[in-house]
């Protein structure tokens, strides 16, 4: 694992952390949703500071280079988040649809009441 990759990881993780903090401060993300990003950034930070972890796992899994293990971790993190985002979007779509149905039904009922009065 090259020193350049370690430096890039450290700065990347710190940069990511600062972005997350700024977004929380500006009320752009809920803290519950920021937990993942803080954990992911800390994980990359740990990998950069203790490269022995990457060496251990690349030996274990038979990778040619420990940096490949780091890339694997990053890709795995992205796939995990991507899938969870897809689930969230599905859930949100369903809720928005239900909300618009409720709204439409409510409007119809109130409309009927008004006609009855007139």
């Amino acid at each position, binding site marked *: 694992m090259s020193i350049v990759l370690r430096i890039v990881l450290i700065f990347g993780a710190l940069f990511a952390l600062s972005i997350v903090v700024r977004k929380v401060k500006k009320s752009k993300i809920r*803290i519950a949703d920021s937990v993942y990003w803080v954990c992911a950034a800390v994980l990359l930070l740990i990998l950069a500071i203790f490269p022995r972890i990457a060496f251990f796992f690349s030996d274990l899994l038979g990778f040619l280079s420990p940096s490949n293990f780091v890339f694997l971790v990053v890709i795995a993190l992205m796939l995990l988040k991507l899938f969870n985002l897809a689930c969230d979007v599905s859930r949100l779509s369903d809720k928005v649809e*239900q909300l618009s149905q409720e709204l439409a039904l409510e409007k119809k009922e109130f409309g009927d009441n008004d006609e009855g009065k007139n």
Partner: protein
Amino acid sequence: MRVLAIVPAYNEEECLANTVQELTQTCPDVDYLVVNDGSSDATPRICDELALSHIDLPVNCGLTSAVKAGMKYAMRHNYDAAVQIDSDGQHIPSYIPTMAKTMQNEGADIVIASRNLAGGGAVGARGAGAKLITAIIRQTTGATITDPTSGMRMYNRAMIEKLARGFDLAPEPDTLALLIRRGAKVVEVPAEMRERQGGTSYLHFMSSISYMARTCLSILLFQWFR
């Protein structure tokens, strides 16, 4: 002092009727509002049939959003204080007048019904989690909250407005810490609580891990930037 009891209910058909009955019998002066959080069981029917004072969220939005809806109601109807009461029968309504009195006498912004002050409190993993939250709140704010995870909290007018308008201000321990740091006065009164009477808790085992992660991160890291 006009007090509103906010009763968030998600799939609580078993206990909701009893909880509201006990509430209206022991505290006839206290108004209540059941917030049916998009329940899929008989909860909305019970609300209609018993003519409970209630609102229905059309989809399940979670405890935070349900309480926020109640806070908006309290704000728009000019209540002096709002207290969160779980619909599962955990919270004993006879403590509400005590809490209101404490709020008035001590000029508190938030009054918490504390199981620990009454010699009880959560045990096991849940108790350890609560102790950890108490410790990090004390470290970051200097205030000691003996029972930070108690759901029975009373908020005064100023706090109602904050909770009704704020972004990501959940009725959770990290919000307590944030409000204390912004000058809110929090007082605890000893109170006993019952075991859950039925239904399923908002906090299952797996979600309690993410609950702790969110709470600790919020108090230890984000509190300084919000």
